[in-house]
């Protein structure tokens, strides 16, 4: 007759449940410490930038800054403002977004939903990768060469927007593609099985499911192009006067405003440059916030 203990498997070594081996404990602590340290390291530049920009920029953050242009204001004069630059930047980025987002989202839809393993899909995907690597000044030079020199158009906000479009498209395509790939195939199949054609499946089932991520991707791209300076100098040039028409003549913009003011040796100009930077950051943050609120409204119901 066997006893019960002989039947039970031998206990594993270190079977005490409340015991953690010292080496595991040390590794755990060490990695935890590294993670916190990297987090703090990553915070340093962020906090430093915010601190410097707010510290220097808050002084000129007055009503005048939002009401006046730099027309007739020289570097050493106090006063003046970035009204012309804010208007310019908002118009240029709005035009960029209107042109780039439909092209980019439709491209991503083609790549994910239609191209499959086809040759065209691979070619498009390759060129999107190439576009991602284009330095911004090259995009500006391209528009300068094609739009201004070859077609003979003058400097304008639109020309700048075209250059920014080249920079924005690949970012939005990649972000949208990733989000569409995250939509489970089961949802597409469920829709097909109801006899819903593919394009309606895409517009009514796939896109709404991926919307939050797509909007976030678009906002990141907007934030990126909003800070571009070099391509704008080549395509819009810059001006100190107010030009609300983005289709004719040089226009102001916040990056070129900052570039112009910081190049001036006078302290008053430097103050304006810092405030310009602060306003640029604030605009990007506000847009981000707005996009998040919009996206939240359409978020998949289960996650609400």
């Amino acid at each position, binding site marked *: 007759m066997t006893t019960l203990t002989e039947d039970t498997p031998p206990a594993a070594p270190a079977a005490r449940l409340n015991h953690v081996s010292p080496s595991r404990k040390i590794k755990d602590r060490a990695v935890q410490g590294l993670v916190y340290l990297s987090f703090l390291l990553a915070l340093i530049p962020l906090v430093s930038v915010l601190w410097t920009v707010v510290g220097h920029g808050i002084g000129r953050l007055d009503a005048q800054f939002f009401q006046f242009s730099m027309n007739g204001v020289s570097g050493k004069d106090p006063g003046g403002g970035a009204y012309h630059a804010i208007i310019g930047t908002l118009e240029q980025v709005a035009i960029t977004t209107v042109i780039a987002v439909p092209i980019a989202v439709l491209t991503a839809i083609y790549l994910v939903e239609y191209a499959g393993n086809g040759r065209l899909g691979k070619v498009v995907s390759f060129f999107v990768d190439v576009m991602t690597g284009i330095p911004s000044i090259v995009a500006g030079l391209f528009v300068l060469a094609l739009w201004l020199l070859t077609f003979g158009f003058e400097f304008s906000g639109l020309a700048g927007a075209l250059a920014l479009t080249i920079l924005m498209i690949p970012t939005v395509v990649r972000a949208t593609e990733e989000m569409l790939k995250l939509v*489970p195939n089961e*949802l597409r*199949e469920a829709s097909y099985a*109801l*006899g*819903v054609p593919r394009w309606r499946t895409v517009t009514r*089932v796939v896109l709404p499911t991926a919307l939050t991520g797509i909007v976030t991707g678009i906002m990141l791209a907007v934030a990126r192009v909003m800070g571009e300076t070099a391509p704008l100098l080549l395509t819009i040039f810059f001006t100190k006067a107010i030009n609300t028409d983005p289709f004719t003549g040089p226009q102001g913009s916040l990056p070129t405003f900052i570039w112009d003011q910081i190049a001036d040796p006078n302290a008053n100009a430097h103050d304006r440059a810092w405030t310009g930077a602060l306003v640029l950051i604030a605009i990007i943050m506000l847009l981000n916030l707005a996009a998040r609120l919009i996206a939240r409204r359409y978020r*998949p*119901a*289960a996650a609400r």
Partner: protein
Amino acid sequence: MAKRIEVSGLHAYYGGVHAIEDISMTVEPRSVTAFIGPSGCGKSTFLRTLNRMHEVIPGARVEGKVMLDEEDLYGPSVDPVAVRRTVGMVFQRPNPFPTMSIYDNVAAGLKLNGVRGKARLDEIVEESLQGANLWNEVKDRLGKPGAGLSGGQQQRLCIARAIAVRPQVLLMDEPCSALDPISTLAIEDLIGKLKNQFTIVIVTHNMQQAARVSDKTAFFNIAGTGAPGRLIEIDDTSKIFTNPEQKATEDYITGRFG
């Protein structure tokens, strides 16, 4: 409302892989036919050829004939989208649309196909939810997200969504494999009720379930890894489970292999 399916000489491929070979069978209207067999034997693939969902997978193709009454589903002028409206499908894992409410999930097939008019939609949604034995549980929260329901309720929601487009045939691919016994019972009861209106084909790994719900049972098998799946035999469920013609069927249902 229900149609007969007649399959003859059907082969299906995934790219170069021959998935199922030379299948012929008849599925009578207003009956439940169960497909059983070991994993990878092509039951699900075959099921998906019956509403042209097989070809949704890149590289997949089908040869042979599937007659729905007088119409060949693989005829040259046949629109796969129209086929799927006629032959509905319920999947293994409940997959309600996450962005839609319970109401919108049931109405999805209609709305996405352009049916308008609130009164008419209301009527069909209630009827479909009643049909799926879900109405009493959700009638007070039709506006709530469909993904908030329990697994069993979600699966019945998916059945409601499938029958809302008024198909002739309902295909079910292991509809209970992700559910607990109580929810499974609810779905099985529902299948018994639905067969008065629809032709039902169900894939199941659960032989008791096949014995409980189906009128006919088809046994599929593969000769070995990589070989195409074949239909071994199809007969009345009572016969398959008590006195099958083929030795392989008997071995499978008695648990001698698989």
